[in-house]
């Protein structure tokens, strides 16, 4: 009985400790977020710094985004046709493919891929710079690491994300078209016109872009924070990378729910 009580007390203690730790990290993370925003001046006026990071997080993620987008589109085309033709509305294939990509799959899947490709790389880069004392060296050279290292990576990610999501959706629609029109034989004109008739620029395309922008901010912020906050050892950096991918995925899906319930309430 006493043993049970003891382990129960230990559990409570652990729970309390973990909770306090989480709340502390949340506070520290928020403070860090504002520090990054306030110290972005230097990186925003020196375009070359951000250019390098767009290359790092945008261009290097291009291949995986394009290929995944194509495959998601192919699957949507197949499944969509299979379901829609049961109701005799195979003509709505274009609408289905476009709406599901623009509203949800484009921003969400592109952000998940971005988190695992670019987010983890950003965390690894900053974490290793910390582990090898590069950040401290920079600080001792009177160069603010948050302004010089963190802020450009953050903005590079934020800028890249909407482009990547748009490219993902475009490739997906192309994939859906390929399956639907080229292989299955849905009418080309109906595919596009049904799509154009039901896809609204502001409600569907613009909201999708807005979503991907929010995801870009969230993933980039998580990635730079985990890197900056990582324990300066090989093990600490690898744990930070894992945390980046896991936290990003959770943040993307939770934010997606919140954004969707705001954006698409009352319409259609």
């Amino acid at each position, binding site marked *: 009985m006493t043993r049970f009580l003891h382990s129960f007390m230990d559990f409570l203690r652990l729970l309390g400790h973990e909770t306090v730790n989480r709340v502390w990290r949340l506070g520290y993370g928020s403070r860090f977020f504002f520090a990054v925003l306030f110290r972005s001046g230097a990186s925003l006026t020196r375009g070359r710094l951000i250019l390098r990071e767009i290359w790092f997080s*945008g*261009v290097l993620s*291009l291949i995986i985004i394009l290929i995944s987008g194509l495959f998601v589109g192919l699957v949507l085309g197949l499944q969509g046709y299979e379901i829609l033709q049961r109701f005799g509305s195979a003509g709505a294939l274009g609408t289905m493919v476009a709406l599901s990509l623009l509203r949800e799959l484009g921003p969400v899947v592109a952000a998940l891929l971005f988190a695992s490709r670019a987010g983890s790389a950003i965390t690894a880069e900053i974490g290793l710079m910390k582990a090898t004392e590069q950040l401290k060296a920079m600080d001792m050279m009177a160069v603010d690491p948050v302004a010089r290292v963190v802020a450009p990576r953050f903005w590079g990610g934020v800028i890249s994300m*909407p482009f990547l999501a748009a490219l993902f*959706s475009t490739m997906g629609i192309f994939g859906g078209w390929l399956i639907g029109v080229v292989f299955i034989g849905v009418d080309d004109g109906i595919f596009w016109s049904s799509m154009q*008739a039901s*896809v609204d620029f502001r409600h569907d*395309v613009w909201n999708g872009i807005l979503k991907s922008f929010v995801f870009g901010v969230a993933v980039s912020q998580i990635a730079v924070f985990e890197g900056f906050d990582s324990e300066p050892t090989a093990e600490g950096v690898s744990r930070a990378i894992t945390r980046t991918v896991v936290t990003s995925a959770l943040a993307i899906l939770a934010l997606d729910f919140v954004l969707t319930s705001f954006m698409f309430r009352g319409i259609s």
Partner: protein
Amino acid sequence: MNRKALDLWVGFFVAIGIGALLFLALKVSSFSGIQMENTYQLQARFDNIGGLKLKSAVRSAGVLVGRVTDIRYDSEKYVALVEMHIDNRYLFPKDTFAAIYTSGLLGDQYIGLEPGGDEEDLADGATVLKTQSAVALEKLISQFMFNKASEGQTAPP
């Protein structure tokens, strides 16, 4: 990675990104559909609008001629007041008939305009007087059941 190659890659990335956005805006969405500037406004009152929504289509002879821009409840006459914008290119006679239809069995509801024979056309801000409400499936069914039931009663044993 030297600077020139980096600039080239980033430039390429941004260019195809903007290309994708333009594709989504122009080819995929109805951004290029009815221009909202070149429209005139019509109103119509319906007893029941069914599942009509904002931005629902307004069609005549199956052709998209405008969109629903506002739906309000008229608390004096206890009916729905629907406002729609019609493309300037299309004019309709004063005795045009407006009805709410459903595209297909389960599709979206839209307003169908059936032109009458009047000499004069509906002007901007005019009201379509002759309307027919959405067909409520429940009403149809209950009517049908009622008829059947009364048939059964009146039939001689």
